[in-house]
């Protein structure tokens, strides 16, 4: 197990470097960050050259990349367009998005697995068809459409929740955005659980457990659910990264000042350190979540052993 983790971590290094290099090159093609600082006015050439030198922009791109990576590992992510260090922006944005992601993740796991189990146990009956139809709708309606509809009806018309999230993002305000963010993933989790439950409920070990006279409840939760959750856990794990990235849309609808908001500002103001920094952290979270899933796999399914 320990050797497996080390091997996986080592494998992550080239992927991490490749991804960040790709983003780095892309973002530096965004436009001249120095020109962006001066807005519509033409910068004084001497001042521009000085800033360029200060920001290490007078070196070839590959040197800039190495310099940047070197700084990152010393905790220096550069400065944002307004002179704040990017790390400070991260400190305010990541907790907010993390809370939003957590709320969405809880909704997704709870309702997704619940609906899937409910449908999978009643395969082919009305309840099953209903759940399938519901998930089909959730997958088909784009997130931002669901977002605006819910915001319009739940928050504005019926006034059951706040249409925008207050500063500091209290959990109460995050429920509605959380539902919107979780929507599509919830549908996938429900479908995956349903297929898995329906397949496993015909397995021999379930028949044995029932024949032994075990209570239904125990058979379902201990035997059926634990075995059926293996593919679901994989999906949930890889989804953490997608949720954090997908928050760009949800944060825009509900005016949440999280990662998506800052990324957007970075792109609008053509500020490479903000964009590259945030994307780097997101990619890192994505990769670590994938590793975590593979490790959880072995816990859930003892048949899988990592040498």
């Amino acid at each position, binding site marked *: 197990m320990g050797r497996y983790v080390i091997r996986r971590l080592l494998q992550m290094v080239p992927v991490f470097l490749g*991804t960040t290099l790709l983003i780095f090159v892309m973002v530096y093609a965004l436009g001249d960050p120095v020109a962006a600082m001066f807005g519509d006015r033409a910068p004084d050439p001497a001042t521009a050259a000085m800033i360029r030198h200060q920001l290490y922009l007078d070196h070839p791109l590959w040197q800039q990349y190495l310099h940047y990576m070197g700084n990152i590992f010393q905790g220096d992510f550069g400065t944002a367009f307004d002179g704040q260090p990017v790390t400070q922006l991260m400190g305010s944005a990541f907790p907010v998005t993390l809370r939003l992601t957590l709320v969405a993740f809880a909704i997704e796991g709870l309702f997704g697995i619940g609906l899937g189990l409910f449908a999978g146990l009643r395969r082919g009956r009305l309840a099953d068809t209903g759940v399938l139809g519901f998930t*089909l709708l959730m997958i*088909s309606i*784009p997130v*931002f459409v669901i977002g605006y509809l819910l915001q319009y009806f739940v928050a504005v018309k019926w006034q059951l929740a706040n249409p925008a999230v207050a500063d500091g993002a209290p959990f109460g305000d995050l429920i509605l955005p959380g539902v919107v963010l979780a929507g599509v993933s919830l549908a996938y989790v429900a479908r995956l659980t349903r297929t898995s439950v329906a397949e496993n409920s015909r397995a021999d070990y379930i028949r044995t457990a029932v024949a032994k006279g075990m209570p239904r409840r125990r058979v379902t939760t201990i035997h059926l659910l634990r075995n059926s959750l293996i593919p679901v856990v994989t999906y949930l794990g890889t989804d953490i990264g997608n949720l*954090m990235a997908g928050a760009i849309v949800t944060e825009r609808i509900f005016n949440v000042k999280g990662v998506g908001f800052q990324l957007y500002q970075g792109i609008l103001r053509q500020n490479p350190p903000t964009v590259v920094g945030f994307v780097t952290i997101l990619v890192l979270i*994505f990769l670590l979540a994938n590793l975590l899933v593979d490790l959880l796999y072995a816990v859930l399914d003892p048949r899988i052993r990592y040498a």
Partner: protein
Amino acid sequence: MPDTTNSTVKDQEPTTLDAVAAITPEQRDVPRSLWNDAWHDLRRKPIFYVSSLLILFLIVISLWPSLMTSTSPYACDLGKSQMGPANGHPFGFDTQGCDVYARTIYGARASVAVGIFTTLGVAILGSVLGGLAGFYGGWWDAILSRISDIFFGIPILLGGVVILSVIKGGSITTVVGFMVLLGWPQVARIARGAVITAKQQDYVQAARALGASSSRMLLRHITPNALAPVIVVATINLGMYISLEATLSYLGVGLKPPTVSWGIDISQASTMIRNAPHMLLWPAGALSITVLAFIMLGDAVRDALDPKLR
């Protein structure tokens, strides 16, 4: 997986007596291939017909939008800004005073084109690269797997916001190009796995023993048997690509005016939802129905081609 369907059909014939009586002529003549079997299965599904008809309709209106409306989506009259339905304009007007009905009809073209071309691009690029990697293995496979790992490391929406805001194109070609760039690794992985499975089958080993060339094994024996999973993923993803295009256009980095796109219209209407919800509801409804049609078709195709899930 393909051989299980074949063998069950063949095995049943001689063993059970009453099965012989029940056999239809087409079953007796030729053992049904996976494709025949899938087609047979699809033809009995109402969902297949509903979604196919919808998709056919969408393709027709994206090719000839003037069949459905004589109003131009660019003929706008600011005096009618945000007005409700009027005679000859059943969906009302948007902020610029353009006819919402005409814009909804003309918007189909962008979505359908992006969906179909992205799917074709991803399927061709992914299956060729992934298939070759699975067949030849070695360093080519190693390099390809690492490259696809890198693309996998970037969540597609995040990559879209960053990369597309750099390119600043806004045409259908740019958006399709970007989505193929970030989408192919998924298909490549599946194609690679399918080819590796097929490569180890007895009939491929037999072909190799008989001295078949690599290209013959690949084209004649492996491709037909590794194609099904690729087609399944490609059809299911078609709807997702349409949804992604609309999301990117909504965020302002995907398609850009003058291209008429549901995503752009929804984005513009979203700020006015309290005053004029009709501006948002029509394009949003059209978009959702389009995605729904393609996803239903994908579901039906998957059920037909993947007998294990039945």
